[in-house]
């Protein structure tokens, strides 16, 4: 049976110790200033004006309808049958169209490789039978990874036993495969996906311009010129978006 990989994050067990962040950096050599994963610490006001915290570990949500895949003009962004969304670095042009398309800010241009980088669910590790680096090192065992199609897996059991939320909103639901247990508390608005206007632009590229790709050199050039122009246009809005960046 085809696997269906999912990540479960139990916010009640997360202690924001950032072990996941450093394990990921160590495993994949992510340059400083960027990260494939993060822990979001949301400060809230609890009952009686008391402080309250929610700790939400995050990374690429490996969405069923991954907008990054749709927006990628070169075909570098793709999804495997098991649900893992990957970047083919041989194909990635570094055009960054996928970056604003992601509602979770999970993608970034790696300055060392010139290609787009993101969480791969540690594809080389899981293909070798190891847990993702973040899961293996998680001090509170808040992260659990596995095959939701295997009824005997830990994730299947936990999905049954506990209440799980996904980072979706009325406007954005692209089928994330990353689940959150918050102990019955609602997800804070700060944690919800941002509306991705750029995604609509990416869609235009995908649906209007991409079909030209089959027409050979000229079409490809067209795609990339359009992509380059879009990249320039996007820069201004990107600065604004980065103010809300959570890669801390």
């Amino acid at each position, binding site marked *: 049976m085809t696997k269906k990989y999912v990540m479960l994050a*139990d916010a*009640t*067990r997360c*202690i*924001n*110790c*950032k*072990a996941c*962040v*450093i*394990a990921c*950096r*160590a495993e*994949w*050599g992510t340059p*400083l*200033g960027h990260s494939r994963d993060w822990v979001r610490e949301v*400060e809230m006001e609890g009952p009686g*004006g*008391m*402080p309250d*915290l929610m700790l939400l570990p995050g990374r690429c949500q490996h969405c069923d309808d991954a907008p990054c895949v749709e927006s990628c003009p*070169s*075909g570098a962004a*793709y999804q495997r049958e098991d649900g893992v969304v*990957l970047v*083919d*670095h*041989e*194909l990635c*042009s*570094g*055009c960054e169209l996928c970056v604003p398309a992601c509602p979770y800010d999970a993608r970034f241009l*790696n300055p*060392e*490789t*010139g*290609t787009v980088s993101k969480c791969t669910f540690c*594809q*080389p590790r899981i293909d*070798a039978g190891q847990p993702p*680096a973040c899961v*293996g*090192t*998680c*001090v*509170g*065992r*808040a992260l659990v990874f596995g095959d939701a199609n295997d009824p005997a897996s830990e994730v299947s059991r936990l999905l049954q036993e506990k209440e799980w939320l996904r980072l979706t909103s009325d406007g954005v639901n692209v089928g994330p495969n990353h689940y959150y247990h918050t102990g019955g508390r609602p997800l804070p608005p700060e944690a919800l996906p941002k509306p991705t206007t750029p995604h609509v632009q990416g869609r235009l590229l995908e649906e209007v311009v991409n079909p030209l*790709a089959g027409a*050979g*050199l000229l079409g*490809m*050039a067209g795609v*990339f*010129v359009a*992509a*380059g122009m879009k*990249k320039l246009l996007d820069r201004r809005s990107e600065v604004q978006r980065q103010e809300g960046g959570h890669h*801390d």
Partner: protein
Amino acid sequence: MSKTTDPSRRRFLGGAGLLAVGGYPARALARVKAPHAAEMLGPSREVFSFCDMCYWRCGLKIRVRDGRAVKIEGNPEHPNNRGVVCAKGNAGLMAAYDPDRLKFPLLRMGERGAGKWKRISWDEAYDRIAAAFLKAKEQYGPETLAMIGHGTWEKPYHRLAHAFGTPNTTSPVFGLCCGPRDVANQLVAGRPLGGNETLDLENCRYFLMMGRNITESLHNGETLGWVEAVAKGAQVVYVDPRYTITASKAKEWLPIRPLTDHAFLLALIRVMIEERLYDTEFVAAYTLGLEELERRVARYTPEWAEEECGIAAKDIRRIARELAAHAPAALVYSPRRLTRTSNDLGTGLAISILNTLLGVWDREGGIFSPLSFPVPEPDLPPFPHADAPRADGAGVEGVWPLANAQYGLTNQMWSAIAEQKPYPIKLLLTAGGNGFMNSTDFDAIRRAIGQLDFFVAADIAPNEMNQYADILLPEASYLERYDDLQTGGAKEGFVAVRMPAMKPLHDTRDAWTICKQLAGRLGLGAWFPHASAAELIDERLKKAGLSLAELETKGIVKKPADPARNFPREHGLPSVFPTPSGKVELVPSRLKALGMDDALDYLPQVRPQDGEFHFTFGRVGFHTHARTQNNPWLADLMGENELWIHPDAASRQGIRDGDRVEVADRNSRKETLRAKVTRRIRPDTVFMVHGFGHFDPRMRTAHGKGAADANLASRDRDGHLGTVAMGRSLVRVRKL
């Protein structure tokens, strides 16, 4: 470590890059022709080790590729971490690859601390050290040497110093950290509960956390055990002036007035006795002194405590009852660093007494008896008898008799050197550590260094203290060396090995080699008979029926947990309490004999005047003490500390979030940093994360970032132990 291919083909969109578009048809075809090539893990091997990024010592498997350590993973077999590794442990790679490391022996050229050095050979370094040491020994006697260590590798330096003939070896673990807690448990129960805490966390159902910020002052196995218990529904009452991540996991946060924990605990004891909530069977069979204790705590009513500590009397009564209802699966959880007030011993005693009243000793969900894995030490000649008493007075009758004489009182040692009392100390040997940032008295340390004839420092990286050395010896990091064995006492007994994951990257040597070679120059070779650390541990292991070769294939060998020995009273077996009376002493006899039983009574602490704040500091989960601020990966998570201040207090001073502020204590010591305005702290208290404000320019990442809490924390002392009362500073905050 990057896995992607040739970066030179990238960036075709930039400028003339568009001309490169011609290269893409093949890729367009590839797109059509998926599947894409999957990335594979490269070939590697694994070596076993235990961590040195903090003092908990988790078991590690280090992945090695092409002769270099590339990834640190946890060893699932190791009881200290059960396979998980924190951010600090994961960033251990950068302790080795830190570009700022000490790379070869250095001789000071300019003034002490001026930063002018000359590279010298190891031989020249040893010759100079030996000449200076022998000269001072001749002139002042062997006790003129003080050795201050901090870390796994301090062990051979202790041996070298004792062979030299000095009693003056010290480490911050006692006087600056856990001393009061350990002494209190030793006095009450004869069981110090030091080192790796022997608490049955997973099965505990009720935690009263006395400022024990277990999720941020983080030790993997301990934190994981606690998280497991909380996930299973254990209740947590968290007592701390600050709302930490631990508080966010608690049912209840009690923002206690700083320095008044003892008042709260005394009232709990009173309620527990008054309402007969204690484990009557255990108390009758195993303890002495209940009647006297009852008399002594009679005046500490919950109403009195409410006035003192700010926790409502009704909550104190309720918590006492809740603790009792969950006992023996209930714990009053001591802070690990209990160096805050001028009567920390009293706080530690009260915690130990409460746990005793709850009857948690040797019970599931309470305190367990650890197993050990005895591995004999090598046979060495006896150390020469030191005629002089310890200069810091630790363990010395009439000075600080209760202080631990193995680790001493590091703060008192610095003062003794600064004052040259009770006798001249002219030689200083340091092994790791950073007197400036781990103590609380920059001035005493500067004066002490000024008194020295010779200061030799060994470390892997630069810091404020070792920049004053006359000779600086660069050590191999823990990824580049063997070390002595780790023998542990958890529910399982174990022995674990540290193997080198790679050859030293620089002209560095491990502590055992350095001490052996120095000992040779000093005529003390008899105390270092082994050619190497590997030979030493092989000999030790063979005496225990093992070998280094065997341990290198397993990483750890364990004696399985034995419930009957871990929890004898769950199995109809007696508990053992090695006190003078053989009972748990609610009023410790040794304290009475020393005339120090006033430690049981409440000693009022300082309070801020108008415009002043209590000064507090503490940890985050991704920095260790003052050791990791220069680690590039950890600095990326937190590069500088901030001053936490409550919005009400901030608005009175016109301070907004992110403003630069100056913090000054009553002695006009000052630090500056940015303000973090947050409801997560009491209005009368400010807080900063420990370990920032480095002023050694060789630390290129950390230099000048944030503020040094060590330059603001109090220099007062606990009156019974001589440990530092760091929490007694009162500060003013001013917007810059």
